[in-house]
């Protein structure tokens, strides 16, 4: 019917989006942002027992300029927040952020003067990973979910269209608010 049938064997057709997504997701270079307890679990995930290398993620580097994924692992203090933002700004596009652990996601049990109540106050977050600390398996799960998201990222005009659609959908939705009176 289509073009596929006329192709010699060994040729596969796909979209540019899919091939770019595949390339991006299978060689992600994370910038470690190990802060607290979660950093140890993140290192465990990189260790031989859980072996993050299976997903092409073993190249943990602390240099933001050669990284496209930031794993914020741990509680972010008011003193650390500017540093975090600076490192995020130094990373080249495209870049993703995983907020690992409940402290990075929402401040967790430390709702006090010292801790930023969720790292999304400082940088945009793609994946929230709950747990205190999350098990390495949970971290792997978050990574795989992020991979899925990266694989299906739209490009160019499609992306613009997607943004418009999401925005319209957000405007249409109504949340069941608790009545104020």
């Amino acid at each position, binding site marked *: 019917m289509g073009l596929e049938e006329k192709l010699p064997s060994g040729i596969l057709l796909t979209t540019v989006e899919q091939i770019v997504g595949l390339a991006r997701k299978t060689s992600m270079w994370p910038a470690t*942002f190990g802060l*607290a*307890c979660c950093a140890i679990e993140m*290192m465990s995930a990189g260790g031989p027992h859980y072996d993050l290398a299976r997903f092409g993620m073993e190249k943990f*580097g602390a240099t933001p300029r050669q990284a496209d994924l930031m794993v914020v692992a*741990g509680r972010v203090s008011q003193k650390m927040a500017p*540093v975090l933002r600076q490192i995020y700004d130094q990373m080249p596009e495209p870049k993703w952020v995983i907020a690992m652990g409940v402290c990075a996601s929402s401040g967790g049990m430390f709702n006090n003067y010292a801790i930023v109540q969720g790292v999304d106050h400082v940088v945009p977050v793609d994946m929230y990973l709950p747990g205190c600390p999350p098990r390495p398996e949970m971290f792997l799960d978050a990574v795989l979910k992020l991979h899925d998201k990266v694989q299906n990222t739209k490009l160019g005009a499609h992306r613009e269209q997607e943004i418009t659609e999401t925005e319209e959908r957000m405007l249409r939705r109504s949340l069941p608010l608790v009545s104020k009176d």
Partner: protein
Amino acid sequence: MTVTEDYIDASGGDWDEVIEKAQATSAERLVVNMGPQHPSTHGVLRLVLTLDGETCTEARVGIGYLHTGIEKNMEFRTWTQGTTFVTRMDYLTPLFNEAAYCLAVEKLLGITDRIPERADVIRVMMMELNRMASHFVAMATFGMELGATTIMTNGFREREMILDIFELVTGLRMNHAYIRPGGVAQDLPPGAVGKIQELLKEMPERIKIMRKLLDENPIYLARTRDIAHLNLPGCMALGVTGPLLRASGLAWDLRKAKPYCGYENYEFDVPVSDGGDVYARYRVRMAELEESLKIVEQCLDKLRPGPVMIEDAKIGWPAKLALGPDGMGNSPDHIAHIMSSSMEALIHHFKLVTEGFRVPAGQAYAAVESAKGELGCYAVSDGGTRPHRVHFRDPSFTHLQAVAAMCEGGTVADVIAAVASIDPVMGGVDR
């Protein structure tokens, strides 16, 4: 960025600019900023180094990047809930934090002598396992920071075995909140003793492998021997304790000097070395691993059936915890008792869980020999159900002050080895 005749401050800004300015001046010394996010700074530690070529002439430490306000947070929670906070301070030695805190609270309550024996044995066993886990991470991260991935993977693999036991006993891999004022949260589950025996059989072999990899490794020796020397008077002046002090030749161990949790009933040696350098610290930690194994073995012999929580209805947690289909919770028997047969038990349970127990006004200091040194907990009560103030004297906090003494005059590469040999955990330093 500042450039003077004396030094070039490169602790910020673009390298192109730094080089340009550096060429225009006669200054030799360069001030660089290392961290707080750097692969070799052991967490969010910030080092400001003044370099003269490769030599580090001045090393200043900046901390506070992980300040969590835990001590203040605890003032708004009951004494029992405090364990949940302290366990997250030094996250590699959670059980030591809990033990120090609980010992202080028990001292305030005056129940130190009434802790059941089984609880004490379990505490000691868990602490010694934790010491091993902490030392493995210390070595693993040390290797990683020097650029040796094998040490890191080995260390984490060994630690994983201990974490499996922790998970079985406490339900969590880290941040256990297992040791509670009055005892421990729950008894050892079935199968725990078998798992620990397995570890006792397997671990000596693993330690031997680690020793074989490192003890006489020429590269390792070159990076560690005669590096970051700190002698005994230096240790004393800077308040250094733990493996660092023992590596400088003083066999000081709180487990021997001021026994707690029944440490006087165990036979073990205190490893000492008089090298005072990074290698000596490594040797002391290695030997401590072996001693810890000995203690764990003795713990298994000492385990007798009995309660694990103080038999005092005013303090001991009212419920017996049990594993249900949806995770850990109150045991079904207890729920049946308070919900259908005894109103008084329900009131008592409610009061103790929501309000907590009252602690007589006063102050207490309890110290344990954590994997890193003397970990002290100073607790002040005003007679209420919450602490008035809890302060932790964390060994890493005190030890980091020694960085300047260890590094100045050495090369930049040795700064990494020095910091790693202190084994600071920023969660404990900043709290």
